[in-house]
């Protein structure tokens, strides 16, 4: 009797030894001695398996970090850092699969289908910590912009993923650096910054531009 796990395992095993997806579900099912419809009870396609694996990684990361003792004391910034570090630590154990899966995606700006589940999980998490951050005034609430914060984090996540795929430093130390520096910069931008103050000042000047006349210069 097949299970989600056994199909995942067999699939990973297949793609890593063959270097490509099976020709058809029929071939795959036959090779694993199960009827084809058994496969469809769990997954609609091979891509669905990959999608599930990626989403599962994110969910496992979230469970792990949220049960850490220090979690409650973390700021939004630290929560994001914690997610990045733990995700890539977990991903290390399936690095070959991750490299295979990412590399076969066509280059482009749209999120590949296999990442949809992961993206949902990530965005829910990002939403949650960003809201917390804005409520605690750790992050700056900006009109229109603060709704896009989570997109910035997602882009960052994609960047780190590709960085990690090409990282050949011992223990992936370079990736640690990329996370530490990158996430910190992103959160620095989310915080109240001189730009906000400049904007405020500009607004003030615009609203009070009549001041010059009322103060009676040049009378």
């Amino acid at each position, binding site marked *: 009797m097949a299970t989600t796990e056994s199909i995942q395992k067999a699939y990973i095993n297949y793609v890593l030894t063959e270097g490509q997806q099976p020709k058809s579900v029929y071939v795959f099912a036959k090779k694993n001695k199960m009827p084809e419809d058994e496969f469809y009870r769990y997954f609609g396609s091979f891509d669905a398996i990959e999608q599930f694996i990626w989403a599962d990684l994110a969910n496992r990361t979230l469970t792990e970090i949220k049960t*850490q*003792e*220090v979690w409650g004391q*973390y700021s939004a*910034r*630290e929560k994001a*850092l*914690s997610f*990045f*570090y*733990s995700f890539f*630590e977990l991903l290390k154990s399936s690095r070959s699969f991750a490299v295979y899966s990412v590399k076969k995606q066509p280059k482009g700006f749209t999120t590949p289908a296999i990442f949809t589940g992961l993206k949902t999980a990530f965005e829910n998490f990002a939403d949650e910590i960003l809201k917390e951050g804005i409520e605690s005034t750790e992050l700056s609430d900006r009109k229109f912009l603060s709704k896009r914060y989570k997109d910035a984090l997602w882009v960052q996540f994609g960047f780190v993923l590709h960085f990690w795929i090409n990282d050949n*430093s011992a*223990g992936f*130390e*370079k990736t*640690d*650096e990329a*996370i*530490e520096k990158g996430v*910190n910069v992103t959160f620095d931008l989310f915080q109240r910054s001189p730009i906000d103050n400049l904007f405020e000042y500009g607004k003030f000047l615009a609203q009070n531009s009549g001041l010059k006349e009322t103060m009676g210069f040049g009378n």
Partner: protein
Amino acid sequence: MSDTKEQSSIPTSKVERSAKFVTTGFKVGGNYIKHYSKKLFNPDMDRSELNEDNAADIYQSLSELKGSALKVAQMLSMDKNLLPQAYVDKFTQSQYNAPPLSGPLIIQTFKKYFGKSPAQIYDQFNIKSSNAASIGQVHQAELNGKKLAVKIQYPGVGDSISSDLKLVKPFAFRLLGMSEKELDVYMREVEERLLEETDYELEVRRSIEFSNACANLNNIVFPKYYPELSGRRIITMDWLEGKHLREFLATNPSQELRNKIGQALWDFYNFQQHELRAVHADPHPGNFMITADEKLGVIDFGCIKEMPNDFYYPFFSLTSTNLFDNKEETIKAFRKLEMILPNDTPAQVEFYYTIYKQMISLFAKPYIADTFDFSKTGFFDELFGFGEKISKMPEFKQARGVKHFIYVNRTNFGLYNILHELKAQVKTDTYKPHVVERFEVDAN
């Protein structure tokens, strides 16, 4: 009141120095932004322009430093050795300015090297660092009722040292108008030491070796190291309670106490130099503590300089008057130390003989009598004055002296400086140099 002036001037220049590096950091960051914004429009652009920009800015800040902070190193270091010295300071200093590691990265580092979080290893672990070490940061922890210091290294420091040196090297050669070959031997020495400092496993082994070897010295304490709680990026040791040198001096200690600490420091260094032939080569005031029971605590054995015999004997024999009275043997020693080179003309030999003899007699002054009073500014004025004079001489534009001078000078002048700050009178005959009065003529 020149004494007070002398003291207050030291911290100021430190602040200025770190400020200098901050601006360099900004400039280098700016160079990257410039590079990437240009690259947006011209994707074929390579990094050579970026590297040149960076090197120019780094070099500029180095040469601005040359005058003030490195005067002491200038002394024996024959101008060109001084550049690597600037790198040493620059790189250790720039790492000082690194922002503290985030909590999640600290946990990640522990998980990577121990498979456990700090909370699982120690009874208590303070996630906020208590102070910065040269290439990492220090956290307070507790295990079985013992207070511990846990040093964590910044990720990627080793890589960045090598790549920064590679980046600046060719450019600096060109700016100085000297050959890469000439300087390379010094640069490699510096790179070697700097990379050793990033190897925490080595540091723990050496710390244990050195603290055992020096265990019998008076008034010196070392923290206990815990190899089982240490790894490539983490060192666990006992937390030493005490005051740093400056805090200690601020309490107006008695002359007797200052002598006691100064003596401990002198014995510690000279025992290592003359008995162990390997020395803690980073006499930075931050690496010492003065404990409540009036002892000198030594932390941080990251930088160790080993002295081979073919350097040790010629150099330290020159500190004895017997050898110095024999001109022929003295020149032989200078040749061994490459202070006089095979191609020098007889006139040059005479010139360098005179100058180096003056220089080394000056350096060896504390060794000549049984005691030496480091509080006297006269000796230091003489040292600085001589350094100044040499740095202006065209004869010293060329690099001279074996590579070992870089760290041995740094160590001894660092030691002299701390003793001067302490205003200590020290018995200098406790661990004397081993000298020989004749040198074998080399086959080559």
